[in-house]
């Protein structure tokens, strides 16, 4: 069962790796990212705010350094824990914490005005 779960996770991740590859090549923009937002029964106002927030996060990640962005995306999109990220990136857990803190802080500043 665990093997099956891992396979599904790996498959989903490999799809998203392709996505990040495209992102790196600047083939994905904010508008297409917002197309991915499902309404889930939210009000138009809530959807508008959500779009704005996603755009803000998206733009903020563009201002991060390569390592900060990688750590940020692995943590908040791939749901990887700190040790996993450290292993994947070949850095110490402490370095991951530093990059993650800076990335979150930058992103938070960017989305701070959106309420």
């Amino acid at each position, binding site marked *: 069962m665990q093997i099956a779960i891992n396979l599904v996770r790996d498959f*989903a991740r490999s*799809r*998203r790796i*392709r*996505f990040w590859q*495209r992102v790196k090549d600047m083939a*994905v923009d904010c508008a*297409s*990212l*917002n*197309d*991915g*937002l*499902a309404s889930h029964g939210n009000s138009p106002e809530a959807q508008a705010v*959500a779009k704005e*927030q*996603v755009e*803000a*996060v*998206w733009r903020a990640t563009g201002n991060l350094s390569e390592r900060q962005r990688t750590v940020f995306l692995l*943590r*908040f*999109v791939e*749901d990887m824990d*700190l040790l996993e990220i450290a292993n994947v990136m070949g850095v110490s857990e402490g370095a991951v*914490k530093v990059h*993650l*803190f800076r*990335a*979150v*802080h930058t*992103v*938070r*500043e960017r*989305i701070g005005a*959106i*309420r």
Partner: protein
Amino acid sequence: MKHLSPEQISSVVAGLRIPEEDHLRNCADCAREVERVQSVLTVFRSSVRELTDKMDHSEFPVHEAVSSRTHAARPHRAPMGWVLAAAALAAAEAIPIYQDSRDRELKAQEERDAQLLDDVNAQLSRSGPMAMDPLMQLMGAPVGVPAKEASKAPGSEPATMQDKGGIQ
């Protein structure tokens, strides 16, 4: 009451431990701010994931993949099982043939070796050099036969000069 600093809030959102966690449990404002940022990040994650799924389906639709597997004319290829079975059968037949020819070759080699050994023995046990053979024949000794054997033979004369008393 002193609220958490922006850095401390960022640390909490990042999942890092801070010494002021007690404050976070008791302060609704700080807890609300942490929750707000976390919810934004959750929305960001779901939007990325949904977009990834959409892109994946548009790039490589499942139904097309299935139909291409079922309807497309694929080149006829022998199943791997048959190929392996044929290879095993060929090997099973080839091994005895190879062993048989190898045995025959070894036997022939042994015969050649034995013949060579006989020749060498005969050469070593000659009573005189090859150039003396005609003289030896005249004297009645069989060519290539050891002198002692020749002398032991009934009715035979001494084969060598020494047997005859040597050259005076």
